[in-house]
């Protein structure tokens, strides 16, 4: 399990993240919310080992993250960044196949997994196409398939970190992507996801972390975290919170 203890990140004199203690629990989707500059991406960077904590620590299975060797860590922890640049004409399945790099499962099994991951990210129909010929949204889903393939089938002990995986997707694909991520968590993987869209967060996450200027303002279920007063304080937005007529989760409506 991936967790932090009193994590603090400073850039120069400025405190970017303060006092973050959280666990990314197996079978759970943890959403991270906050306005721009709240520290969401910094938190992700610290959680995947790109940023060293100024204070506190990040632990994976009770060992410091920095102690983990590359391939072993990659078998347990996968990261989907917000943007990816790839300037070479790989085929879609080759890009997804790179996710299998940390594993030694052989080409046959890898091919099965690649196929399944492509389907899960709803890019199965793009197999055989050149990556460079895809639209922004299609490329984003291909990279999602890659990180899904990296942790396939997703089970206890594996953690998936995602930075705004739906930013370039149309409404339909926003939901299909989150459903696939949800399915991953249901199989036992731990998922942390940064989202901008409050309603998507409310629907698909089990818990939410609300960040304000680097401070953890709230860490609890959506019902508890998404209160009009908190949202007004953090986002400066006047909102109404209503339960979803069919599913019951909070729905945020701007006033």
């Amino acid at each position, binding site marked *: 399990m991936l967790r932090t203890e009193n994590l603090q990140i400073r850039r120069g004199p400025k405190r970017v993240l303060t006092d973050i203690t959280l666990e990314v629990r197996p079978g759970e989707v943890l959403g991270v919310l906050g306005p721009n500059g709240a520290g969401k991406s910094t938190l992700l960077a610290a959680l*995947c*080992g*790109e940023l060293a904590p100024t204070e506190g620590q990040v632990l994976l299975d009770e060992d410091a993250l920095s102690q983990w*060797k*590359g*391939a*072993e*860590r*990659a*078998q347990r*922890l*996968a*990261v989907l*960044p917000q943007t*990816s*640049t*790839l*300037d*070479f*004409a*790989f*085929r879609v399945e*080759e*890009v997804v196949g*790179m*996710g299998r*790099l*940390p594993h030694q499962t052989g080409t046959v099994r890898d091919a099965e997994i690649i196929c399944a991951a492509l389907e899960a990210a709803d890019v199965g129909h793009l197999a*055989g*196409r*050149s990556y*460079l*010929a895809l639209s922004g949204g299609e490329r984003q889903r291909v990279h999602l398939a890659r990180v899904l393939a*990296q942790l396939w089938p997703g089970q206890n002990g594996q953690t998936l970190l995602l930075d705004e995986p739906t930013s370039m997707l149309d409404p339909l694909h926003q939901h299909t992507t989150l459903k696939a991520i949800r399915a991953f968590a249901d199989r036992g993987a731990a998922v942390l996801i940064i989202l901008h869209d409050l309603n998507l967060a409310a629907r698909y996450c089990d818990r939410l972390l609300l960040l304000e200027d680097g401070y953890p303002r709230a860490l609890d279920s959506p019902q508890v975290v998404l209160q009009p007063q908190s949202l007004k304080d953090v986002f400066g937005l006047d909102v109404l919170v209503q339960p979803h007529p069919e599913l019951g989760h909070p729905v945020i409506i701007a006033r």
Partner: protein
Amino acid sequence: MRTLVKPRPLFIGLSALCLIAIWLSLALGPVSLPLLDTLRAALRLIGVPINGDGLEQAELILGQIRLPRTLLGLAVGGVLALSGVAMQGLFRNPLADPGLVGVSSGASLGAAIAIVGGSAFGGLPDAFGPYLLSICAFLGGLGVTALVYRLGRRNGQTSVAVMLLAGIALTALAGSTVGLFTYLADDATLRTLTFWNLGSLNGASYARLWPLLFVTVAVSLWLPRRASALNALLLGESEANHLGINVEGLKRELVFCTALGVGAAVAAAGMIGFVGLVVPHLVRLLAGPDHRVLLPASVLAGAALLLFADLIARLALAPAEMPIGIVTAFLGAPFFLYLLLRGRH
């Protein structure tokens, strides 16, 4: 999507091309040897006792002139192409060239120091001369690349962008230093410098060949083992890191292999351009960017293409010889422009 050539036909085709190039390189030359004589001379070389008049000369031409030259061409072409792939992977850009890390300009500077310095001491001594030149070129290439690499490192991380800028700056510096030497040089030294900068496989001898062959084989065996890691590196450094690859180590290996390979090639044959830039492109057009195919295929393609270029260099103006750098530039530059105009696939 455009159909790509599958690996097996690609390797068969490239190997055949290589064999044809080797054959032509051994069979053709300013001295016209009848085919039969060439075959008999080849047999004599490996110890089969065949006698016949004119065969001594054929054996000499084949064994002392054409064979070392062919081997040199194979090694130089192969290692330059391989280094091109490595640099295009390191900079994650298909327009990258081994010269970007400064190895070519460093080698040029080293050679200039040897040539001009040597003439200041009354000419390069005959026996020592070629070796001194090669050693200085090699050390120059290695030295400048090491400097570029150091400049790019901060806090244990190597910034490829900084390396690129450092490479440009040091190339400019090396170039102006060579310019200074050019100014200080007399006519004869100037000509030597110019010809060195144009590259040539002329005067290949086994003694000077072994270090390069060794380096080429070593690098050609080592880099393909990192093919999957190189593929991942193209996604981006942090993405590759998240896939469990030691990115810093990989970058160091790429820079080192390039410095070693190109340094040795330039030391043996002078500056030969465009091979590192164009050959990987060609292979990618045929077979896609997967390094597991690209790396070994580029070695074969580079070796074959350089031998073909050398054929032109040797025969076009016979009995004189054109510097091979001119041939590769004449062939490479228009092709490269064509690639740019054609747009990306």
